[in-house]
């Protein structure tokens, strides 16, 4: 700045400023370019490729080049009973997990938001499953869910041997609930932290004012906390929904979609079709339909939780 010519030279001033600004925007461009490049390479290009491949008969291993087949993949998809099962399971999972995990996370957040000693300990406890790899968690819970595993032993002990738990992951009627329970346990800590962040943005004086007015705990929650969490709520809702729709790792490790397709999901089907069965084109079509569905659900949510007024 000190090297600039004296301020009293009006004709040169705009030029210098313009040059400085150009240099600044060049620098900005330079700094943002690695991120843009990576985004293009690992996000935009694959998405565009998936869109394009969905209309071809591309295969993972093939000596014949991919041919344009129009809507053939989508027609096959409409007649594919497995796709409907996957779709149904995916929605079932999301419909249970979104309210359950969101609600439980809020309850936990309210509990650990209290100003008591040792609260950090509980925050850590609830957060530990989140930082553990999903694959590791899935393997551990597979052991726990065995017929003579920890879960059934607990049930048996708590009921004094009256109730014998089912073979959780090998029974079509309990396999999905078992995966839901585990997924909620694993993911709840993450959303607890988000709720917690939201809770701490609510001004303390509102609570003080409510106390002075003699508000009960419920009234305080209803009229101070809940409205104060509006933006957090939208964020939590949409992130859980999208995460729930992309259910894959648990299924891949614990059940491989079985028994009797009771846990297959759209993403699992797409991966299975694309890699194990080498049908790149068909898998792209599944992904494309899935993308449109998730987009639609997110837009509807966005619309329902929009700022009114």
């Amino acid at each position, binding site marked *: 700045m000190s090297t600039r010519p004296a301020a009293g030279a009006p004709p040169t001033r705009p030029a210098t400023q313009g040059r400085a600004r150009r240099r600044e925007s060049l620098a900005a461009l330079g700094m943002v370019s690695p991120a843009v490049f990576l985004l293009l390479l690992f996000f*935009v290009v694959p998405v565009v*490729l998936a869109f394009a491949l969905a209309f071809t*008969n591309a295969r993972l*291993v093939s000596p*014949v080049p991919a041919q344009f087949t129009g809507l053939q993949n989508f027609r096959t998809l409409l007649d594919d009973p497995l796709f409907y099962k996957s779709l149904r399971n995916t929605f079932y999972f999301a419909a249970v997990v979104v309210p359950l995990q969101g609600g439980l996370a809020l309850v936990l957040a309210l509990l650990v938001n209290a100003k008591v000693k040792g609260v950090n300990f509980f925050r850590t406890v609830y957060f530990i499953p989140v930082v553990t790899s999903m694959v590791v968690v899935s393997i551990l819970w597979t052991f726990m869910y065995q017929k003579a595993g920890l879960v059934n032993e607990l049930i048996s002990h708590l009921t004094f041997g009256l109730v014998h738990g089912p073979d959780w992951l*090998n029974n079509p009627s309990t396999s999905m609930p078992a995966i839901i329970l585990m997924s909620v346990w694993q993911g709840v800590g993450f959303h607890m932290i988000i709720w917690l962040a939201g809770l701490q943005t609510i001004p303390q004086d509102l609570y003080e004012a409510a106390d002075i007015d003699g508000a009960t705990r419920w009234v305080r929650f209803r009229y101070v906390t809940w409205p104060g969490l509006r933006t957090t709520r939208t964020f939590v809702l949409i992130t859980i929904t999208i995460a729930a729709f992309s259910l894959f790792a648990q299924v891949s490790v614990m059940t*491989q979609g079985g*028994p009797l397709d009771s846990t297959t999901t759209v993403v699992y089907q797409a991966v299975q079709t694309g890699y194990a069965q080498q049908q790149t084109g068909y898998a792209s079509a599944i992904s494309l339909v899935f993308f449109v569905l998730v987009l639609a659900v997110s837009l509807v949510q966005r619309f329902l939780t929009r700022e009114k007024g």
Partner: protein
Amino acid sequence: MSSIAALAAAALVAGCGGGGSTGSSGADGNTLTLWTHNAGNAAEYGVVKQVVKDFNASQSTYKVKIQAFPQGSYNDSVVAAASARKLPCLLDVDGPNVPNWAWGGYLAPLDLSKGQVAVKDQLPSTVGTYQNKTYASGFYDVALTLYSRKSVLKKYDIRVPTLDKPWTKAEFTDALAKIKAGGTFKNALDLGTGDPGEWWPYAYSPMLQSFGGDLIDRSTYKTAKGALNGDKAVEWGKWFRSLVTKGDAPQKSSKSPGDDFRNGKTAIQWDGSWSAQANIDKFGSDLAILPPVDFGNGPKIGGASWQWAMSSTCSNKAGAQAYLNFSRQTKYFVDFAKATGTIPATDAAAQQVKGYETGGQFNIFLKEAQKFAVVRPVTPAYPYISTVFSKTAMDILAGADVKGALDQAVSQIDNNLSTSNYATGS
């Protein structure tokens, strides 16, 4: 925004165009690259390194350089490298994948006539062929077998089956019922159903074949109709499911069925020859290594394990060929079998591997591989058939309608066979 779209489109075109180029690689002059799936598998990797070291020392023209991958990501690496035309000159390949990779244009046909060991001396299942051409050759194979204990069979008054007189279906059913009635064992039979993936077609399609069914109609390789959903196949499916409903075998085995057998939880276990040493260590001479059951069409086991091949894009095929021929020495067949606890691919080598020699305790595996081995269908569609069969067998075990599940599997496989232009690919 439009510039981003243009860039993406350019990248897309570049990406597609790259696949069609006529590049060849895998060698830098006379230095050849070799890929193996043996990173993390020290014993077998050690032999690979030894063969390469000996080859490099044996002549001064060529030099082979190893790159090792962990098994879990090996196939993905090969498929990715093939799309980018960056395959190495030499690579190993899992037997059932050979037709798929040969059809896909990854592999080049081999001339193995110049090695010390003749191809005809090898176990047929260790030679990978597709459309009458040899694309790969392995040093060893593995065999499926039933493990039990002589004392257990004696206690329940069960006949000890032999290679010449294996158990019949009725005898086997009877044996399982006796053991189950005894009540000492958690599982009368353990099929190892906790392991997903390629184990399913490897382990259970031989049973289907022994019933008289198959994964595909091997007279044409154009349909699975009749083979996979005929009366014999349905009979197999019903029997398979009955193991669970009768409580003879667990629907899903634990993660380590071998330990369950050695810890006395399981009376009879369906497993591979690779577990033999551990079982001998535990039970000594009480261990009973039994041939597979004859369900009507003779006993069957799967064939083919890892084999060696040359890529079609290799720029120094003479060098690759020289290496492959050099490696065909009986001593390497011996080394591989010793290091991995597998069946040596030739009789000459078997005589030099302890246990596999005539009269040895593991010689039964060699006999099984010679007499009962059926290779998985030699068709580029195999990876697809494999996934469909695994899923169908899992569904049947979980209680699906047998005929319906097999019919659906057949329609999926036939649809794949007809839409994939496999015939035009070779």
